[in-house]
């Protein structure tokens, strides 16, 4: 204890514990305070629950958005894989010729797969999709070209655009169409969503800090006399802070658990209509759930926020509390 400034023979003998003893005492105090502050929370169950609920509500919105975005990213990846190019062949090309052109396209670099749609097949699909069988029947001959659907090896929009240019140079190909605009729109939307989530996360995180800070401020005020007394008889700031930091961490953890429960309930409640909605668009989309990793992140963040809120509150108010 090199910091001990004024050794009197008597005083020095009575309290100069060795490093190991001090460390054990420190660990023991941590344990005691963790349990003690937990008990204090349980002694006022309703008040504690309200605080935790406030924290939980502040956490649910950003966490829910984050989850949704996370699954949207999965969906995005799926859609990217399904992004294809369509190469329309010149009109009037015979079927055998069309097959040769398909082979030529398949041999190009960056092409993962091809599928030939002959003029007749195209017409059949067209009729089926539009229900214009009678009107189309009246046409003389088939006005549709044969086409080749090309699956690119690299789904990145830039690469796909480059590939489209290369394919247009293949003899017999009239035009290559790619519809990437919606894919890019989706991507921009996802990015917007991410930023909104981040901003909301920061705002609501601040909200958690304030909720915990306010609760801890009241706790500090309630235990003012105790703080004054222990300061008078030689408690360090760390010693005084410790029970409040643990309270803050417990509040955070409790709020995190409640938020987890709310998210699980909410995702159960919404999952049926969301799946039905997705199915009506021919997509399969399931509301995501917090996996073990997500749960750990949520609980870790909430506990940390509670601890931090307590730390700020205690430090501010300890400076005000001077023993009289």
């Amino acid at each position, binding site marked *: 204890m090199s910091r001990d*400034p004024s050794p009197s023979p008597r005083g020095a003998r009575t309290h100069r514990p060795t490093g190991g003893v001090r460390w054990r*005492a420190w660990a023991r105090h941590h344990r005691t305070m963790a349990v003690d502050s937990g008990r204090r929370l349980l002694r006022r169950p309703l008040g504690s629950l309200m605080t935790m609920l406030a924290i939980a509500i502040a956490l649910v919105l950003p966490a829910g958005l984050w989850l949704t975005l996370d699954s949207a990213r999965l969906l995005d990846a799926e859609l990217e894989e399904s992004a294809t190019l369509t190469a329309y062949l010149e009109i009037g090309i015979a079927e055998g010729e069309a097959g040769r052109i398909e082979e030529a396209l398949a041999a190009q670099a960056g092409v993962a797969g091809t599928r030939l749609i002959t003029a007749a097949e195209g017409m059949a699909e067209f009729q089926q999709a539009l229900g214009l069988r009678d009107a189309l029947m009246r046409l003389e001959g088939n006005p549709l070209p044969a086409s080749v659907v090309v699956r690119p090896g690299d789904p990145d929009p830039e690469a796909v655009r480059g590939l489209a240019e290369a394919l247009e140079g293949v003899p017999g190909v009239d035009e290559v169409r790619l519809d990437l605009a919606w894919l890019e729109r989706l991507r921009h939307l996802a990015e917007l969503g991410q930023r909104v989530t981040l901003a909301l996360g920061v705002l609501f995180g601040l909200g958690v800090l304030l909720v915990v800070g306010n609760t801890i401020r009241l706790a500090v005020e309630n235990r003012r006399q105790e703080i004054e007394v222990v300061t008078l008889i030689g408690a360090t700031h760390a010693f005084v802070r410790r029970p409040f930091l643990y309270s803050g961490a417990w509040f955070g953890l409790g709020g995190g658990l409640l938020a987890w429960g709310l998210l699980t309930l909410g995702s159960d409640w919404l999952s049926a209509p969301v799946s039905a909605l997705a199915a009506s668009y021919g997509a399969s989309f399931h509301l995501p759930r917090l996996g073990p990793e997500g749960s750990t992140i949520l609980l870790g963040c909430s506990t940390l926020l509670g601890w931090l809120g307590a730390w700020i509150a205690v430090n501010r108010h300890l400076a005000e509390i001077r023993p009289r």
Partner: protein
Amino acid sequence: MIAFEHVGKRYGGRFEALANIDFRVRRGEMVFLTGHSGAGKSSLLRLIMRLERPSRGKVRVAGHDIDRLHHSQIPFYRRQIGVVFQDHQLLFDRSIFHNVALPLEIQGVEHREAARRVRASLDKVGLLHREGALPIELSGGEQQRVGIARAVVNKPALLLADEPTGNLDPQLSADIMTLFEDFNRIGTTVMVASHDLALIARLRHRTLRLHDGRLVADEEVA
């Protein structure tokens, strides 16, 4: 043990609580500090406890200029001083035992050792049989004795008391003073602030008298 060197203390730039205080207390002495209320007794004790810093002059305790202590060192400095307050400053939400154990808890003394010292200390003030009680269940005199037990539980070299008998009847006051004398006899330096002049006169110890923030008498008893 304690040395005041031309110490002055002003509050708010105007009110002069202490002026040019100069005295020394030797190790193992017992000293009374007396004077009317507002004479500066509490201010003087607060300077020794390093709750406040002098506006001028130096306060030395155990050879150290305590004004120069870094604020992180102050808790460790205070652990060497036992303090008894007029209003006991007990914590009412915990038992007598845990009140007395508080200084040891702060210092991280191991449980069994702490329990041993707490019981020794309670035994000394005659309250061992009440260790499980809450402070509220005790009389004023008993509460003050718990305060004393807490002040001496880690065997401080210096024991300060601020009006320890302020609210007690004469017999209880005399008992409390006898306790201080006992601690002094085993080597503890004791400084008691009190305005109970009759009691002080009977006990025959060195007396420092303050008047309007000035040291007006320093009476050694032969």
